[in-house]
């Protein structure tokens, strides 16, 4: 299992408004093979299609054409409902701008992905509290998220991405809205998760990430095409 590629794509394409005058080729012919417990960085300027690629790899969107096999399942043309369920069970996503639900407590925000599966509340509580301890958020568990600092919000967002105990963690610009000390802290956290076997897929143009020791492969995205990037 360790040597198998848990993410594999074959000529993955995403074209918005095909055939129309405002056609956009966001992702073109992406071939990717990522083994388990790898840590991959995708670089590229904004608008290069990084995020669109991540939405497909994260089972948030379906490709226009091409194949995507995730954890051995050919998910590329699954209906949205099944993609969502698959994502809910196997993939965690950290969004660029936290995307927490204001008005809810830290606890509720972290627990939200578990609601549709109807897990027993004891399990939910145990998992959320464990994560809060790991991420040093346990002292603020019952605070409204609106009262948190940027770094704390990011940690809540990460906890929410991990609460379903995913095999794959996808993060879009995880260090964009926090200062560099905090960013280093977050990356250390990712590193430790990666060591435990979590497959990481990070899109960022933060140089801090590029040089980070956990990153074992780097790709560069430009105009929807993906190229392997070899450091000098």
């Amino acid at each position: 299992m360790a040597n198998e590629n848990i993410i594999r794509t074959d000529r993955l394409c995403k074209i918005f408004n095909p055939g129309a005058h405002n056609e956009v080729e966001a992702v073109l012919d992406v071939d990717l093979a990522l083994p388990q417990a790898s840590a991959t960085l995708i670089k590229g300027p904004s608008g290069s299609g990084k995020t669109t690629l991540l939405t497909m790899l994260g089972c948030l969107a379906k490709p226009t054409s091409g194949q995507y096999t995730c954890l051995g399942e050919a998910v590329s043309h699954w209906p949205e409902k099944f993609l969502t369920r698959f994502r809910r069970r196997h993939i965690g996503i950290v969004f660029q701008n936290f995307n927490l639900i204001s008005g809810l407590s830290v606890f509720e925000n972290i627990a939200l992905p578990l609601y549709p599966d109807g897990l027993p509340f004891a399990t939910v509580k145990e998992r959320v509290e464990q994560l809060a301890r790991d991420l040093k958020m346990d002292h603020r568990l019952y605070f409204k998220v609106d009262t948190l600092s940027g770094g704390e919000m990011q940690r809540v967002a990460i906890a929410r991405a991990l609460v379903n105990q995913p095999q794959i963690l996808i993060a879009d610009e995880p260090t964009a809205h926090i200062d560099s000390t905090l960013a280093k802290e977050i990356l250390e956290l990712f590193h430790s998760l990666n060591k435990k076997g979590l497959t990481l897929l990070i899109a960022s143009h933060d140089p801090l990430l590029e040089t980070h020791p956990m990153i074992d492969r780097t790709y560069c995205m430009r105009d929807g095409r993906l190229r392997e990037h070899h450091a000098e």
Partner: protein
Amino acid sequence: MLNDAWIIVVLIGQISALLLLALTLYFATPILRYWNPASGSALQLELERKTFFVSSAVEYILAFQAVIFVLFLIIVNHYLPRLINGAMCASGILSLNEYGYPALYGKIAALAAYLIFIFLNRLDLAEPAYPLTPTKYFLLPFLFWAALADTVLTVRFFSLINPDVIATCCSISFSAAKISVLSESPVTVSISALLIAYYILLVIYGYWGLKKKIAGLLLFLEFLLLPVSVFILKYHFVKYIYALPSHNCLFDLFFGRYYYIGYLLFGLLFISAMAVIGLFLLNRLKKRFTKDLKNIQQNLRVAAMGGNLLFAIIIHLYWFYWKWIIL
């Protein structure tokens, strides 16, 4: 009588359901035309999302119609008999005009149709390939026409009721029974024949049900057994329930003084019939599924046989109570 509160509520419910169904049909048309699971186009995604509207709407409609059906039963069984001179139960109410019984049967048929659609829909949505899409959507136009017919019949039925009319109630049921009792006529013979037919059918039905073979035959048997069950109830067992030798109007079963047993008895028959139809459809369509449907089949079989068996047990308990405990 269209200005009566009960009837207005029933009609509002009907119209809500009908409007939702019309909307559903509007959503389903492009699904029927353009559905292509292999495509990753935006259109396909949109159609996929539309299927959710259709499923939810039909489930809403089923819930609405079930409530309306209960209201309809209350109206014809309990409410209108107080208003209509001479009618003591639904039999008199429903025969007030030629739309009464068709409205009742129309409602039952429409309920059955919604249930079938929801059953297929649930099966379909459980597999990523959506094996029954878009086939199942061909049912929707029929559902719509059934609901429309149901609504029209209901409106006609209620609008033609005039509280001044004196209804005849069950006098027909009464006199027919009296004749058969008085003259030792062939009707008596045919009741015992009917009973024998019932027992034979029940045994064959149980046998085939247990054999788990040919669902088509089970369906055929169910549609023999169902009317026979109703007949033996009407012409034989009901008098033990009422403890009246000459009264065999089935609608009194829905009254509180018989503990609303009618709702249970007919509910059991309905469940059995629906389960057998489900089983039949499942057998027809199971090649399209990759998943194992044995569990569902087993449950349906239990529901079908259990419903009929429970029905038989209950009516025999009444008979037993009357024959052996009272006499």
